[in-house]
């Protein structure tokens, strides 16, 4: 039987651009170019490796996001995913973590899955909670923050490098996995991959398709509210010296002046 893998990928504003908030205190997405969250490339890569190791597997990439989020799906398809699902609805604007997890969980159930693969965190919200929320909602094991992952005999195993220990984890499928940027470099799409991606199916779903009411998501339905966002004041220019033999001593002088020595 085929192994059904769903990879959750987020479309995010480019972190190297100048990111801002819009008037309603949501992320200004018109302001900066968007792309597939770099940390989700690792999730796509691990899904591809799991597929390559399996007899028969199929990878669906799933995103919840605006029209442009299609770009993120295309990137994942050109890396080698088989098909895509795009949940798009005007009422999703401003959805928070709990709302996003609701939409993703419903879309995952509708698609059908044995394994869900996520990135460790998005590069914009950077909460790192969606995989745990999905496991809770889907009532399946969470095998998260993995630097190594493999699937065999209906089981997923992996290594989690925590703050105080390294753990070896194991769970039966179906399960939700998240992988870190230590899990292995993501491949570049080949020319052939890019051409093939153009023909791969992208299914579009809205809230009605997922039987979600508008007031369960979006800014209105959110469990959290941002009351203010202020740009961090630019640091006042520091002292910069050229080392002409005295640099180390001058620095020591500065640190002593600040009472660090």
């Amino acid at each position, binding site marked *: 039987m085929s192994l059904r893998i769903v990879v959750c990928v987020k479309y995010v504003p480019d*972190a190297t651009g100048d*990111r801002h*908030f819009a008037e309603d205190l949501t992320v200004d997405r018109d302001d900066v170019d968007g792309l597939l969250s770099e*940390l989700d490339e690792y999730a796509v890569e691990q899904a591809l490796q799991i597929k390559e190791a399996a007899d028969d597997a199929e990878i669906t990439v799933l995103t919840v996001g605006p029209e442009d989020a299609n770009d993120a799906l295309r990137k994942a398809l050109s890396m080698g995913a088989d098909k895509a699902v795009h949940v798009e609805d005007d009422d999703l604007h401003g959805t928070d*973590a*709990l709302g996003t997890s609701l939409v993703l969980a419903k879309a995952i159930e509708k698609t059908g899955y044995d394994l869900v693969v996520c990135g*460790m965190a998005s590069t*914009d919200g*950077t*909460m*790192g*909670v969606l*995989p*745990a*929320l999905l496991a*809770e909602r889907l009532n*399946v*094991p*969470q*095998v*998260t923050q993995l*630097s190594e992952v493999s699937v065999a005999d209906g089981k997923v195993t992996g290594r989690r*490098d*925590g*703050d*105080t*220990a*390294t*753990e*070896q*984890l*194991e*769970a039966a499928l179906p*399960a939700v996995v998240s992988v*870190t*940027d230590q899990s292995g470099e993501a491949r570049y799409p080949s020319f052939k991959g890019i051409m093939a991606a153009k023909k791969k199916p992208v299914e579009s779903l809205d809230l009605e398709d997922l039987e979600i009411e508008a007031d369960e998501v979006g800014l209105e339905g*959110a*469990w*959290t*509210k*941002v*009351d203010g*966002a*202020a*740009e961090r004041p630019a*640091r006042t220019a*520091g*002292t*910069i*010296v*050229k*080392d002409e*033999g005295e*640099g*180390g*001593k001058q*620095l*020591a002088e500065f640190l002593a002046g600040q009472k*660090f*020595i």
Partner: protein
Amino acid sequence: MAEVLVYVDHVDGAVRKPTLELLTLARRIGEPVAVHLGANAEDAAKILGEHGAVKVLAADAPEFAEYLVAPKVDALQAAYDAVSPAAVLLPSSAEGKEIAARLALRIGSGIITDAVDVEAGDEGPVATQSVFAASYTTKSRITKGTPVITVKPNSAAPEAAPAAGTVEQLAVTVADSSKGTKIVSRTPRESTGRPDLTEAAIVVSGGRGVNGAENFPVIEALADSLGAAVGASRAAVDAGWYPHTNQVGQTGKSVSPQLYIAAGISGAIQHRAGMQTSKTIVAINKDEEAPIFDLVDYGVVGDLFDVVPTLTDEVKTRKG
């Protein structure tokens, strides 16, 4: 006064500093009740009481060590049901955030992660977050349910506030559905004897400019002279020069020490995301155009192999 649940991060009853910071913040919004899961609650209770915990709800079950995260969510939920708190605070570790998220979902509450400050507000606790690689500061609150907030290390100074810290046993039933992810083995990290990276008052980090694992002792010697923790950029980690656990940045640790010294690090946005909130920033880099110099309080344009050893000697001499 309303009670506030504080999830205790500890290693066998040795409470880690971020939990004491949480107790300080919790006292701004109510009376802290600590939740200690695992062994040696009595040891923990002493220091928790000294920092304001009126009560310590303790539970120990083999499942906490045998399965990932979910049994701890069951336990925290039991504490939540027992206390009906005004808020729940947890440390912003990977595990702390995952426990927080699942609890929030179960109790129908919103969640805020990575707060750098928490204050009382008219409509419940207000959390400050430092977002987009610390280029913005936001204020947020939770509008539905009981606020669940995770707080980054070094967000508050732990304050002594003697309280009873009475240990009460908490009855916990671990659901079968929480036993899905087995922890097959656990290898504790070896201690280097240096301060913990996220808790250290001073951090000295090395990057690609250190140019080899064999040169990292240059960075370590400076760190040791200052009693500092050692950090590394992802470039240094990816090259295998230093362990990943010491990586500072978006996908490594985020640090916010009194003093951060970056040697041979260019200052890419993902690195800055993890250190930009440091109080004083110093950089040593041979390229005067390196973006890290935009952040510094003091910068030295020069070869780190000249500057760092000289600095180390000076520190040692001055400290006597």
